[in-house]
């Protein structure tokens, strides 16, 4: 027996130096060895040695502690030397393999292969085997649970004693953590097998102190009824009227297991009992396990099946619907229908990925070429716990279901993810590390046949096959790189699980950076932590375009226009340059000189004198004619010397109409006295003094408007002297005159509207009814005209035109205005021509510029 190793999977014998079964490729030796005794971290390449992890026990999860305790107890309670001898080959594996113990159930139920989906088979590391015969499928069962008989039994024992199915005895303290339904279930099984000493090491110890009374009573009742299964069926139900239906059915089922077949059925029932409170996914998993169990050898005789069905039928009425549908699950219905949704979805996916759950497939590259190494090492399978749903993670360490994973019921309750992950590690370790594990003496060389290997990798997921290929490549890495891995501080249970235990570190990534610390010490291609992380791709470019609506953009455009209009300098209309103006001025001057000088020099009379008499001029002539002969007339000379020619030409005809006037000259302008003297020198009839007194020149009247007003109120006081400083008011011209109103008329000769207005305004109160006659320059006529229209001025003679009119109407000929009139008329026409010509030229230039601007646009 020591020369060969019996495959725990297929039951065939293999050489002792083989690591994997040459028939079914199952691992014959455990992947991880015993831990070292010290807490020193495992260095890459070191062989894991046994450790005293007692101190670390408290930090282990409860479920893991329980599993380890159970495994330890299983290995220690070897009843027979044969069993111990058998157990030695698995001692190392049970200590470290305890986590995966329950997972072997799936693999071992070879007769149920057709019910296990391929993906699940792949995850367990087994190749999809062709369907075997029933005899072949019933060879090995429950071997990983540590029952040495499982490896030693032959065909006969297997067929004859199905009750040899290993049962892990749960510890009493563990039961306290179990749920009621599980305690109940576990409490039944040991009682069902009291007379099987060969199975004592694997059977449950009967609960004593913690078992409720009703349960002990139920157990007590069940013992004498081992041989009376049919009768107990009704009696057990009546004995526990208060217990739930499913619990009442349990004694019945346990009675049915008095025989090996019954025992197996009872195991199934005990496992099926917790399904009442299990979630669907667990129920489905349990169902699958039940399928495995239900698929136990055909020598589960018809009687046993019949009793099972009877018992099942007796309780089926009271079972919930999900329990009613349970038998259908036991049938040949694919296991996929019982897996959780997250597994269902994946199984319905493509061929390669359909066999891998999402959470599992996401962790590995699915369909990459075999030449490319997978990004994640196989050891990251342990991180699958991080990918599973939270509810599943939460349930894993807390639920007491996993504490009895070595028991049939416990193994049934073990979630698939744990089974698959643990089983998955095994083939991965086998395949990926098989070639480099030569440094580890704990494993033997793989002697599997090439056919089996082909079958294994043919059916394996891509990611796993890649890992295998890459492992061969990585096995060629220099040993120095392997030794570079520094140890990490890991808990013992993590050390036991991490694949570094197997020997050399592996890296399937192109990143050759070795992780030096932490749980991932020794791995390459690990995603770096935040420090030192350098992005390998260019950062994504984000658009800086403002996300503004059309209305906002319109408002922004308005604002920009406003700001641009405020900041932009306004073009100032350019004036014509001096050069052009000077030339034009020269031209105009030249024209005037050329035309007017000959006219004046020749004294031509081309133009007739004006005939029509305007009202203001007519009234002025009437006022003058109305002045009595020899009446005093006050004449104000308020014009500049530059206007002498115009003013004398306008005023001379009026003064010609006066008849022996007694003229008094006064001026508000400093030069007025002199201009008055010059005007007196004109040889006119009224000014000659031939027919009357000489005009009296009072000279300059100071004070402006105030002087005029003072003169209007008191003329002798305001202008007491004449221009020769003689007393003016004592002269014959002003004899008897003390006020302004005593003058016969007031004649204002002015080229300035302001001075005329001053005389009009300031003498309005003092002049009385005397008429005011204004002889103004042409430039002041428009401003003086309103005073005529308002009758403040009796008559108005403006400029050369007015003088010409007066001169034309008083019958005089050849006087002053006549000398000016032709030149004056020509000058006026020239002005009109220049204005019209300039206007038309400007219009033409404007049109040209406009057309040019339009063409430019």
């Amino acid at each position, binding site marked *: 027996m020591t020369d060969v190793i019996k495959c725990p999977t297929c039951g065939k014998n293999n050489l002792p130096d083989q690591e994997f079964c040459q028939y079914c490729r199952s691992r014959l030796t455990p992947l991880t060895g015993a831990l070292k005794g010290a807490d020193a971290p495992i260095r890459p390449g070191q062989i894991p040695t046994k450790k005293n992890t007692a101190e670390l026990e408290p930090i282990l999860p409860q479920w893991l502690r329980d599993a380890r305790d159970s495994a330890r107890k299983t290995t220690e309670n070897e009843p027979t030397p044969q069993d111990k001898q058998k157990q030695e080959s698995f001692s190392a594996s049970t200590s470290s393999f305890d986590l995966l113990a329950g997972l072997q159930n799936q693999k071992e139920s070879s007769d149920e292969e057709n019910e296990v989906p391929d993906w699940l088979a792949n995850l367990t590391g087994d190749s999809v085997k062709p369907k075997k015969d029933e005899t072949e499928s019933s060879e090995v069962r429950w071997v990983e649970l540590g029952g040495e008989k499982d490896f030693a039994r032959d065909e006969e024992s297997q067929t004859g004693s199905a009750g040899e199915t290993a049962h892990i005895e749960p510890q009493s303290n563990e039961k306290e953590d179990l749920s009621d339904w599980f305690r109940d279930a576990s409490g039944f099984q040991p009682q069902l097998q009291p007379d099987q000493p060969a199975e004592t090491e694997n059977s449950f110890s009967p609960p004593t102190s913690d078992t409720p009374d009703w349960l002990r009573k139920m157990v007590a009742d069940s013992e004498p009824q081992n041989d009376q299964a049919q009768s107990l069926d009704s009696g057990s139900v009546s004995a526990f009227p208060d217990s739930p239906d499913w619990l009442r059915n349990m004694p019945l089922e346990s009675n049915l297991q008095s025989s090996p077949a019954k025992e197996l059925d009872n195991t199934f029932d005990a496992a099926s009992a917790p399904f009442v409170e299990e979630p669907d996914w667990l129920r489905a998993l349990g169902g699958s396990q039940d399928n495995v169990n239900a698929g136990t050898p055909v020598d589960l005789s018809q009687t046993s099946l019949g009793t099972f069905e009877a018992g099942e039928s007796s309780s089926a009425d009271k079972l919930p619907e999900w329990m009613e549908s349970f038998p259908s699950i036991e049938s040949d219905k694919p296991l996929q229908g019982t897996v959780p949704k997250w597994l269902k979805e994946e199984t319905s996916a493509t061929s390669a990925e359909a066999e891998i759950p999402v959470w599992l497939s996401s962790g590995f590259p699915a369909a990459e070429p075999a030449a490319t190494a997978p990004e994640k090492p196989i050891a990251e399978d342990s991180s699958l716990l991080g990918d599973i749903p939270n509810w599943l993670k939460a349930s894993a360490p807390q639920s007491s279901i996993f504490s009895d994973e070595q028991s049939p019921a416990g193994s049934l309750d073990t979630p698939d993810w744990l089974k698959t992950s643990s089983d998955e590690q095994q083939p991965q370790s086998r395949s990926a590390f098989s070639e480099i594990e030569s440094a580890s003496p704990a494993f033997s060389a793989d002697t599997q046949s090439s056919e089996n290997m082909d079958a294994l990798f043919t059916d394996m997921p891509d990611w796993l096959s890649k890992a295998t290929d890459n492992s061969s490549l990585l096995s060629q890495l220099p040993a120095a790189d392997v030794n570079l891995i520094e140890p990490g501080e890991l808990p013992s249970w993590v050390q036991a699980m991490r694949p570094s235990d197997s020997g050399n570190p592996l890296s399937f990534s192109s990143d050759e950076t070795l992780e030096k610390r932490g749980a991932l010490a020794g791995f390459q291609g690990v995603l770096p932590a935040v420090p030192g992380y350098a992005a390998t791709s260019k950062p994504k470019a984000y658009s800086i375009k403002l996300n503004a609506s059309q209305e906002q953009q319109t408002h922004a455009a308005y604002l920009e226009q406003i700001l641009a209009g405020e900041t932009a300098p306004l073009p100032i209309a350019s004036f014509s340059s001096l050069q052009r103006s000077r030339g034009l001025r020269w031209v105009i001057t030249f024209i005037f000189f050329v035309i007017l000088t000959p006219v004046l020099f020749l004294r031509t009379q081309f133009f007739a004198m004006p005939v029509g008499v305007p009202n203001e001029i007519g009234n002025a002539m009437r006022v003058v004619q109305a002045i009595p002969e020899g009446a005093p007339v006050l004449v104000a000379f308020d014009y500049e010397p530059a206007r002498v*020619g115009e003013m004398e030409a306008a005023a001379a005809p009026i003064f010609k109409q006066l008849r022996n006037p007694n003229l008094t000259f006064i001026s508000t302008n*400093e030069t007025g006295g002199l201009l008055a003297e010059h005007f007196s020198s004109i040889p006119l009839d009224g000014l000659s003094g031939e027919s009357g007194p000489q005009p009296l020149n009072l*000279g300059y009247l100071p004070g402006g408007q105030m002087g005029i007003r003072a003169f209007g109120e008191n003329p002798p006081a305001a202008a007491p*002297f004449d221009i020769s*400083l003689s007393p003016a008011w004592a002269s014959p011209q002003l004899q008897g005159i003390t006020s302004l109103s005593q003058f016969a008329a007031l004649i204002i000769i002015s080229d300035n509207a302001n001075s005329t207005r001053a005389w009009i305004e300031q003498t309005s109160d003092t002049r009385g009814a005397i008429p005011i006659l204004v002889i103004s320059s042409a430039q002041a006529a428009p401003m003086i005209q309103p005073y005529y229209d308002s009758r403040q001025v009796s008559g108005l003679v403006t*400029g050369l035109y007015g003088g010409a009119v007066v001169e034309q109407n008083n019958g005089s000929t050849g006087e002053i205005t006549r000398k000016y009139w032709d*030149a*004056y008329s020509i000058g006026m026409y020239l002005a009109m021509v220049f204005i019209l010509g300039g206007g038309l030229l400007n219009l033409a230039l404007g049109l040209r510029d406009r057309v040019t601007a339009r063409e430019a646009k």
Partner: protein
Amino acid sequence: MVLSLDLITGLLSFVFTLFIFSYLIGDNPLFRIAVYIFVGVSSGYIASIAWWQVIWPRLINPLIFGSILEKGFMLVPLIGAILIFMKILPRMAGMARFAMAFMVGVGAAVTIYGAVAGTLIPQVLGTINIFDLLAASARNVSPIESIFNGSVILAGTIFTLIYFHFGARPKADGSMQRMRLIELFAWVGRIFIGITLGTVFAGVYAAALTAFIERIISIINFIGNFL
């Protein structure tokens, strides 16, 4: 050779006229010489007029040869004149304030009174009375002409005043615009203003043309004296 006064004045008049005409080619020394001489002569003449016709006969002579009463009255203008004369000295310029204040005050009062009594009220009355057909008949003006003239004057007055009404309300686009009716009347008033300014320009041109002709005649006469 005895130079007559008329020849001298005629020569000076001819020379200075040419100097002033030289401004056609721009500002030049001849033009400046003529201007400076005119300014100087005018200032001297005005100063002499002020002395001989104002200060001496009306201030100094009464103070010297006048009676006590006249002297007393003449002290007020004398003190005022002295204070205004202090403006020559910057440190004493403040003393001219009293005299200047008196002059400005009296001048403003006289001006305002004259403007109101002699221009504003009579112009308003004239604009209203222009429609007085009886007065028009008295002035030998036909009623139709009087009404037409009155209407034009009234419209011109109103529309011109409206043109200087710049009150407006802001629009949505920020621009300012008056009411449409105001804009229409202002446009008509702008026509009246244009006509008025054109008339003024014509008057200025006529006055300047007459002065130009007078100067040319003066030159011709001067030259004719030697022909």
